[in-house]
Each structure stands twice: as structure tokens, then as C-alpha cells.
């Protein structure tokens, strides 16, 4: 049988003793059957009638022996005495067969981590958007490719250096730095440090908030960083002419191939 906690057992014993004392007092004047009905009347306000009926039927089946009506009905179903035949039916004061011992709130045993979230089905809500995006980018690339041809200059010639010689556009920021610093600083140190800081960003930025108003420093730093490279790339792409000298594209023309 299930183990009953010490304080509950104590409480149950007290209740049993109290019930026995009351019965001993009542036994002198009243018959047991009348006592039972009095008990039921007292309980009627709390227990639904059909449950009382069922309980009475079970008691009758079990032999009507209700002399030790203790309060230890922790897990005793009304049907159990019927199965065992002559076993006594434990009934609490007022005819209860079950009793609320304690209410365990969900947070105290299970650690509830996540609150319920507003979710939608991936199909169709997300997949349709993704499919549209894939179609869009494919269509855009195809149509753009119909009208604009990729450059193919003359065969590579080691003896003829084009003026200016430019790296691919995403490296033009670095090439721009080359005009200002020693190659080791411009080509390795500055991009290396920038890259390491970028990789380490989540470990450097310990601010837990995602709200823009709480992250003014991080946002301004990143914006300056992105702007730094964007401006350098644009200068390198559009404002550098022969000899990698500074020119205005609307005066000297465009020296830029994708």
C-alpha cells in the first residue's frame, strides 16, 4: 500500500479517535442505522446525491460495517471493497470517501520554462513565403542576366598591366586602405582585428537586452564599422581612376568592372 506521510497519519488517527468517541457517546441513545442517516444528512450539502447512493450501495454490499470510519481514505476507490468482498469501507467524517489532502502547484514540482507561444503551421504560412522568395530571386537573376552580360575582357596578359588594377569590389575597401597604410597593416592587421572582433561580438557584448534603446553603444559601433567598409568600398569602386588616384566618376568616367 502507498506510504502515508507522518503528519497525515497523525491527523487521520486523531480524526478516527474523535469519530470513535462520538460514536461511543451516541451508541447509548441511538441505533446505528439512524446514526448513519444523520451522517448522510449532514453530508448531503457537500456530496452529490448520486455519489452518496453509490457509496451506500457499496457499503451494503460490503456488509454494512462502518464502525471504523477513519479518515485515511488516501487512495481507496469506492469499488475496492466490493472487489475484496468483506473488507471494511473506510469513510471520512461526513461520508466522504476521498479527501483533498493538499494542492500541489505545477511550478513547485515541474520547472515550467517556456510560456506558450503564438505559433503557426510551417505549411502553408512559412513555405509559401519561402517559395515566393525563391521564385523572385530566380526570376530576378534570370531577367537581369538576359539584359546585362558578365564582363569578359581580353585574354590574361602578364606583360600588360591594366591601369587601374582593381581587386573584386568586396576587397576594394582593403585596397583603399593600402593607399594609406603599410601593406601589412592594411591587408592583414586591420581586417584581421575587425574579423576577430566580429566573431567575438556575442562574447564581448554582454548586454542581455535586444531592445534598440538599450543597445545604443553596440548599434552605433556596428553602424560605424559597416559604414567604414561601405564608404571605403564605394570610394575604391567609383572614385579611383588611373594610378588609383582619386577621381570623380562624372568627370573622369567609371573605372569599375564587376
Amino acid at each position, binding site marked *: 500500500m502507498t506510504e502515508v506521510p507522518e503528519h497525515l497519519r497523525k491527523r487521520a488517527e486523531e480524526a478516527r479517535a474523535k469519530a470513535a468517541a462520538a460514536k461511543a457517546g451516541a451508541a447509548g441513545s441511538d441505533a446505528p442505522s439512524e446514526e448513519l442517516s444523520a451522517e448522510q444528512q449532514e453530508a448531503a450539502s457537500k456530496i452529490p446525491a448520486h455519489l452518496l447512493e453509490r457509496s451506500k450501495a457499496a457499503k451494503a454490499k460490503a456488509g454494512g460495517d462502518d464502525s471504523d470510519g477513519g479518515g485515511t481514505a488516501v487512495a481507496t476507490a469506492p469499488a475496492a471493497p466490493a472487489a475484496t468482498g468483506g473488507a471494511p469501507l473506510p469513510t471520512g467524517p461526513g461520508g466522504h470517501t476521498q479527501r483533498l489532502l493538499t494542492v500541489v502547484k505545477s511550478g513547485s514540482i515541474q520547472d515550467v520554462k517556456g510560456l506558450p*507561444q*503564438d*505559433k*503557426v*503551421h*510551417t*505549411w502553408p*504560412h*512559412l*513555405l509559401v*513565403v519561402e517559395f515566393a*522568395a*525563391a521564385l523572385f*530571386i*530566380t526570376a530576378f*537573376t*534570370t531577367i*537581369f*542576366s538576359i539584359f*546585362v*552580360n*558578365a*564582363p*569578359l*575582357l*581580353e*585574354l*590574361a*596578359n*602578364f606583360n600588360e*598591366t*591594366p591601369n587601374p*588594377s*582593381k*581587386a*573584386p*569590389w*568586396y*576587397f576594394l575597401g*582593403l*585596397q583603399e586602405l593600402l593607399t594609406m597604410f603599410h*601593406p601589412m597593416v592594411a*591587408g*592583414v592587421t586591420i581586417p584581421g582585428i575587425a*574579423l576577430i572582433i566580429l*566573431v567575438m*561580438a*556575442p*562574447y564581448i557584448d554582454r*548586454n542581455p*537586452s*535586444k*531592445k*534598440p534603446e538599450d543597445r545604443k553603444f*553596440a*548599434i552605433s559601433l*556596428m553602424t560605424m564599422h*559597416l559604414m567604414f567598409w561601405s564608404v571605403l568600398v564605394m570610394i575604391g569602386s567609383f572614385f579611383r581612376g588611373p594610378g588609383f588616384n582619386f577621381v570623380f566618376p562624372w568627370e573622369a568616367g567609371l573605372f569599375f*568592372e*564587376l
Partner: protein
Amino acid sequence: MAKTDDEVQKPLPQRMQDQMSQLGDQIQGSQAWTSIFRPGSIFRKGYTDSPRNRSYVIMNSVLYHLHPVKVKRHAVKVSYTLCLGGLSFFLFILLTVTGIFLMFFYRPTAAAAWDDIYTLQTSVTFGLLVRNMHRWAAHLMVLTVFLHMARVFYHGAYKPPREFNWVIGVMLLQLTLLLSFTGYLLPWDQLALWAVTVGTNMMGFTPVFGDQVRFVLLGGVEIGTDTLLRWYVLHVLLLPFVAVIFMAIHFWRVRKDGGISGPL
């Protein structure tokens, strides 16, 4: 006799429609069809739009490797992600498809490379179009990956528990740049040669082993046919292979870290 009368009375289009739907039922009921499309597939017979089937569409298909059955409502808002990560992935697929096409017509030697590209543009059906697509999609992918990174930063989506996925993402950004840069040399024209010369000269200034780095990258002391072969293998095999592995980890971590980051 009544049955044949019915058939005669039906107009021809009606009869054809009946036959078509009967044929459709037969195909959809065949063993081959049901073995291909698992329960819940929208192509299965009697697909109805129910919550259960909506779950099955993902759960019973290969898409389950990429997406959970349900996502946060704000995650499907285009205004939040601008679909930049997804677009980068689509462009990668587009580049793979067009790249495989280009590989059929290209030999990575100094003697043949430029001529192959020229022939591809002038005498191969759709050759010019596919080469253009490959070129523009590559530039576009550098742009979308860069913008994706900016978007993630401004949303603070790199914060715990997503720190490591940010690191993977920065690796993917570098891989994208390297993929684009190695592809730049392959046409073997003046643009390719001198752009790569500028780039590799810069790498030669790596402290301590600058000369060794340059030698390994070029496959010699200066750019030549060995460089072309080396960069070709990097471009079509090694870098895409590494990128796919990193992408798999990247996508997996998106789900393991609780889906895309929440609203600000």
C-alpha cells in the same frame, strides 16, 4: 440499357472529364504513387487542409530536416527577416546548379580557360545566359550574406543562446567571399588576372609566413596555370563542401536555439 442511355446522353466534354478524373484516381491510387508521396503529402489522394495534414506535410517529408512543424507567428513576417538568410541559401543552390552547367564546358588550364569561356558564350545554347546568371548570383549572394549579418546584428539575434551560431555565420561570410574570389580568376581574362594579383599580393604580407601563404595559394611563385587548377578545385569542390557543412550546422542551430530570435 439505362446505363448506356446515360452515357449517350452525356456531352463529350463531360465524358472526357469523367475519364480524366478516373485516370487521375488510378494514378494517385497506384502503389508507385503512394510509395513516393507519404501520408499528409499534398499530392496524395484525398488531401484535405486540416491541422493534422498541415503537420504531416512537414513531418512526413524531407523538409522536416529544415523546418519544425510550427514556427512562431512573427517568424513568418517578411518585414522581420527580409528573408535574407533564405535568399542567400537559394542563391547558393542557384549557383550550384548554374556552376555544374558551366563545368561541362570549362577546362582549368591557362591555355584553354579563356577560349572555353568564349566558346561557351558564343556557341553553347544558353551558355551566355547561364554564365551571366552565375556571375550576378555570386555578387548578389555576397550582398545578401552581408545584409543578413547586419540584420542579425541589429536585431540582437546573436545574443545567448545564439552566440555560437553567429560565429558559424561569420565563417560562412568568409567562405562566401572566398568562393567568390576563387571564382574570379577562372575566366582567365585581364580582369581576373589582375584582380587576383592585387588580392594575393596583399595576402603575401601575412606576418611571419607571408611568402609561404602566397606560395600555397598560387601553387608557385607567381600566378600561372597551376594557380588556375588550384583555385578551380577550391572553387568547385573544397569550399562548397566546407560551406555545405557549415550551413548544415547553421540551420540546425537555428532550430536548436529555439527558432529565429523573437521580436525586439
